[in-house]
């Protein structure tokens, strides 16, 4: 019987001893040692439990239960101790392991699309949303499509408005994207609702002109398309592109392939209409040329001008990009300097 008590006392003493040691342990390694010392295969508590064979039959379950409790409890304490140490260690580590976060990140450099592409896509996006399909045409064109079919016969003073690059008498670099109108109408019957983005060329070069530039042409043709509709579509476009509050005005102009023709001005985006250098103190910026398709053009493509009406418009992409990004020299678009391209 004494052995019973001794075993119990011994258990409790070992438990206390283990707890004491755990308290002073500061590293995981020490805890592991303590675990081995008491609970390992040759550990003190394990050895004691093995000695239980000498204990009386009736006390065996009692001591056994106690021994088990001590073992479970100690394992619990070890876990807690370990968690405590790890937590402490993590905190210490975080204190010591700081980086110079002001150094630049390690990045593989990224590129950019050209601002003309970006602006063009934005414009296309707006018109796709309004149901306009995209059409394209050749950049080297026949005089017929660039001029004659657009009601600009040879020896017409309106040809002065286009400084044309010629390949031969009949072949030229298109001076606008308007020939796409004709090519589309020749192939399709109304209703038509297209835009045609692309390059155009004129022999002109200064701060505001480059011999190559980009335009978006638009054409909407059907049974009851009115001048009011032209105003509506272009108002939606300008509002989406430059903001809902941008005011715009339509004023009479002349294009041989539209009648009535309208120049569209929008409120200056720089000074908001107060007058500044960009708008030559008028408060307005010319942004689009437009008009109702001239009946002559309908006749040329074989439409009946008594049944069909429609409008067309054209806008310069560089112009829009310059206003959007505050660029004052159009030539920068085609110099392709990385310091410029990297800004968009």
């Amino acid at each position, binding site marked *: 019987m004494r052995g019973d008590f001794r075993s119990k006392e011994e258990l409790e003493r070992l438990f206390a001893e283990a707890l004491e040691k755990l308290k002073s342990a500061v590293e995981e390694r020490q805890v592991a040692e303590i675990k081995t010392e008491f609970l390992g295969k040759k550990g003190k508590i394990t050895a004691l439990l093995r000695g239980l064979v000498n204990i009386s039959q009736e006390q065996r379950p009692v001591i056994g239960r106690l021994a088990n409790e001590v073992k479970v409890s100690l394992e619990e304490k070890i876990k807690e101790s370990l968690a405590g140490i790890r937590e402490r260690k993590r905190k210490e580590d975080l204190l010591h392991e700081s980086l110079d976060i002001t150094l630049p990140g390690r990045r593989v450099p990224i*590129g950019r699309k050209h601002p003309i592409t970006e602006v063009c896509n934005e414009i296309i996006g707006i018109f796709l949303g309004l149901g306009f399909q995209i059409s394209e045409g050749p950049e080297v064109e026949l005089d017929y499509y660039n001029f004659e079919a657009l009601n600009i016969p040879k020896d017409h003073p309106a040809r002065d408005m286009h400084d044309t690059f010629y390949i031969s008498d009949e072949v030229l670099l298109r001076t606008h994207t308007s020939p796409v109108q004709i090519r589309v109408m020749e192939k399709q019957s109304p209703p038509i609702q297209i835009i045609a983005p692309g390059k155009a060329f004129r022999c002109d070069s200064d701060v505001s002109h480059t011999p190559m530039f980009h335009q978006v042409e638009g054409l909407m043709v059907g049974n009851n398309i009115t001048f009011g509709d032209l105003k509506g579509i272009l108002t939606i476009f300008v509002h989406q592109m430059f903001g809902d509050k941008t005011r715009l005005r339509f004023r009479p102009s002349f294009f041989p392939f539209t009648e*009535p023709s309208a120049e569209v001005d929008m409120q200056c985006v720089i000074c908001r209409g107060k007058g500044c250098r960009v708008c030559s103190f008028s408060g307005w910026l010319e942004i689009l040329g437009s008009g109702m398709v001239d009946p002559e053009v309908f006749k040329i493509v074989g439409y009946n001008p008594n049944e069909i009406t429609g409008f067309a418009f054209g806008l310069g992409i560089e112009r829009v990009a310059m206003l959007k990004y505050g660029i004052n020299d159009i030539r920068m678009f*085609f110099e392709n300097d990385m310091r410029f391209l990297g800004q968009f």
Partner: protein
Amino acid sequence: MKVSFNWLREYVDIDLAPDELGENLTMAGFEVESISKVDANLNNVVVGKIVSLKPHPNADKLSLCQVSTGGHLYSVVCGAANMISGGYVALALEGALLPNGVKIKNTRIRGELSQGMMCSEEELKIGRDSKGILILQDDGLELGKGIASALNLEDYIFEINITPNRPDCLSIIGIAREIASITGKILKIPKIEFREGNEKIDKLTSVEIHDPELCPRYSASLITDVTIGLSPFWMRRRLESAGIRPISNVVDVTNYVLMEFGQPLHAFDFDLLSERRIVVQRADDGDVFTSLDGMERPLFSDTLMICDGEKPVAIGGIMGGLNSEVSEDTSNVLIESAYFNPTNIRKTSKKLGLQTEASYRFERGVDYGGVIRALNRATQLVLDFCGGKAAKGVVDQYPSPIFPEEIPLSINKANKILGTSLKKGKVKRYLKSIELDVKDLDKDKVIVKIPSFRMDLHREIDLIEEVARLDGYNNIPTTTPVVRVKTASKNPVQVLQDKAKDILASMGYYEVVNYSFISPLSVVLLNLNAEHPYKRFISIKNPLREDQSIMRTTLIPGLLNTMKTNVYNKNLNLKLFELGTVFYSVKEKELPREKKMLSALATGLRYGESWSFPGEGIDFYDIKGSLENLFEGLNIMNFNFLSTTDIPYLHHGKSSIIMVDNTEIGTVGEVHSAVLEGY
């Protein structure tokens, strides 16, 4: 066109301030590009009258004048030769600072008191005449009044962009007519009255038109015994305001009427016309003619010439000849007022490379009905300012008169096209305000008679545009079209292009946009064999520069050029791409074949300047890797790279042919050092 505010006010009352007028004109389709104020800071320069003059006692070339300003009498010493007693002058008094910097003070000149200075045009910077002092026209000038207000020197010059369809507005009266319509005022056409002589013009000269197609109308007047000299100050000043250099009174009158009515005129020295007559006929190919500007001009069989009895004396509608020019010795002048075929004038002007104020108007179409009125106006002004005697009547050869067109206009149609609901009464009022003759045809339609000065109105749609313009584009309701809903999206090729650009940008490539024309030399630099497709380029007939004179057959020279510019600007680490069209010649006079191509170029350090990456240079495998990524990103799987040694512009040991589905689609490699040396 340059238009003087003061000049306009002679034909229409204007209550608007210049900037308001500018705004109104712009919104009516006459875009005012700028308004510049003509300032005349001529304080203490007043209207004076020479009441007496006598020689300076101590100087031969000086005079002693007494000049009155109404209230005061001033003694002025003057060295000019053109002073006359009773003449009105511009007198600069003590304190005046002239535009040329001279400050006027009371002083003594050779012992005589001089209390000011009588000024020349040039000294006041209001004209070019510096030969003598300015003698003013005595038409109601108020003595002592500031010269700027007395002479209407303060002015505003409108620079107006007149569209090619509105030649009628290439004149002050044309613009005034539009202002009258906008503001509801009356257009005041100057009264044309003068005394004719007794001798009938038919007895003195004749006009024959041999080619009425090219010259439908030719009229002339004749004034004898004119005195050639300086035209009056106000006339020269108005001509200058319009950008025309004053020459002599007769020539100035023709230019004045040109600007006033828009009808080009020409004055011949009548005594230099052989047989004293005019014959209008075509030149012969190979003829040569010396125009007024002294240039020898080759002529063609479709060049219309104004001839006398034996030789050409002017290029019809474009420029007069040196051989019949009005000079200081001229005493008899024949004035031409004609209507020429617009297309032929344009062709001739182009062929001769000669554009004049006259040709600019004739090729757009002048008022065929206003030919005689302008001629009479010129005769009147010549008599007024050059003296002489006008022959009785005019010659007017007009074999097949042009009759005004009558165009029906449906109000419904106008409303249908414009999206408006204008009433017939309003439409009629609009059209009448620009001097169109409008009559009812039926309930819906009116019939509009077109005046001869509106050469641009032929069709119903032309009238509808006028209605819209006069109603004001901004008053037309803004609507959205009623259409069948359909979806719109990019087509697969457009989507593919977008995607390729995105992938390349995400790998560090910058998109560039180069001109579609390149230098022929850049193709030579690629070292291609004769049959290479890149050599099948087309050339521009009229390039701006030699290095932009052929259409590109490849994007490579553009990228190499971009590299060059960037390296020059110290941007050394480059990844570039371009997606654009190239052009291959097919057959002469036919359109070239256009093809979309993608090219990319990389040079410098693989990751640019970075503290954390090794500074390794780009090599073949970088760009090959980019291609592999691109293909995978575009879901192109069946690609491979074949070795090759015969791409002339690439390094023979570091280049490859790109194959997709066993088709060659491109090349990749290190640029040949010989090519690089060219850049």
